[in-house]
């Protein structure tokens, strides 16, 4: 899952000269990788790709602001829904 998310980010946003080197704990907003439209695109990608529905009250930095957080959040959502990871 992390590879797919990294691939999506690298294909759609500027990750710098070393996309693979972006730490999983780095803030995507503070690093300038994504902006508010980017969050919208990320949410759409996660919903379409991983079969989850993200509620408004889940649109939080602790769920979406780092690659590690995104992976953890999507995994939890899939487990809640009984979707195989």
């Amino acid at each position: 899952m992390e590879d797919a998310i990294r691939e999506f980010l690298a294909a759609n946003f500027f990750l710098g000269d070393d996309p693979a080197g972006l730490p999983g704990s780095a803030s995507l907003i503070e690093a300038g990788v994504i902006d508010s439209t980017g969050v919208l695109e990320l949410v759409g990608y996660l919903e379409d790709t991983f079969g989850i529905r993200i509620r408004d009250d889940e649109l939080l930095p602790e769920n979406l602001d780092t690659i590690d957080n995104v992976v953890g959040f999507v995994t939890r959502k899939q487990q809640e829904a009984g979707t195989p990871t």
Partner: protein
Amino acid sequence: MSGSGTIEAPDLLAIDPEEAVEAIVASLREIVGKELRRRGAVVGVSGGIDSSVTVALCARAFGPGRTLAVLMPEADSSDDTLELSRSVADSLGVEAVVEDITPILEAVRCYERRDEAVRRVVPEFGDGWRFKIVLPSVLGTDAYRLFTVVAQSPNGEQVEARLPAGEYLTIVAATNFKQRTRKMLEYFHADAHNYAVAGTPNRLEYDQGFFVKLGDGAADVKPIAHLYKTQVYRLAEYLEIPEKVRARKPTTDTYSLEQTQDEFYFSLPYEQMDLCLYGHNNGISADDLAGRIGIAAEDIQRVYEDIEQKRRTTRYLHLGAQLVEPVPEVPAKAS
């Protein structure tokens, strides 16, 4: 509202309107006459406070005979837009030209492209329906704010849905035809009269990138871009802008359902947003400002962060075309 020893919040934005108007008028004459070598100004007048003050300042700087108000309503404009705009031009003795931009917008399929995007999210959206796009409040939560489309059927039933990125971008792109069409017509009249185009952003709009690149963001001179909106209202009073215009609630006048500026873009109503921007610009801590304006410190901190985020996101709007290598013979700025 303030504690002992602190300044009342409105005082933070106190301005001497006579002094401010004199300074702007002198600068306008210098910039337009000497730098730009134009003999007057064109202003797109919307019936809102900013364009009304801008056209009044131009009339003072160049005289009513060398100031032209261009009124450009379209199908989604409020019913009172034209009447209010005319009242401003009439009160100043400035000539007003009306250009209904609806046929141009139809020709470029502005409404059609936009409505197709809305329909992908709200399939029942059709004839007689109206809509707007809105952002949730920044207050009380750290959640990211995503746009929602609010559509209203002819019998008043409302449907709300979160906008996916593609549809959001398409709706904004199509709607931007309006501001760009208006600017094209302003430059037609400016070229025909050898006038400059005066842009109308206030400080909030200019700083936070609340404008369309090559649309309302384009101009030769921006006379009120350094003034907070509260200060623009103060100037409006001094310049005797008609009461109806001064009393009108700031709206985008862009979508078919009425949309306030704070639900579309800014985090707060302009009075509070002005104070937060002033506080942030002048190093006033969230705690200190909270005591003065009655908003929780953590919410002010969120607004400060939102201000910075918008500056980053909209930096591109302020940039002209970037050169791969410098061309030093052509100065980019006025001397």
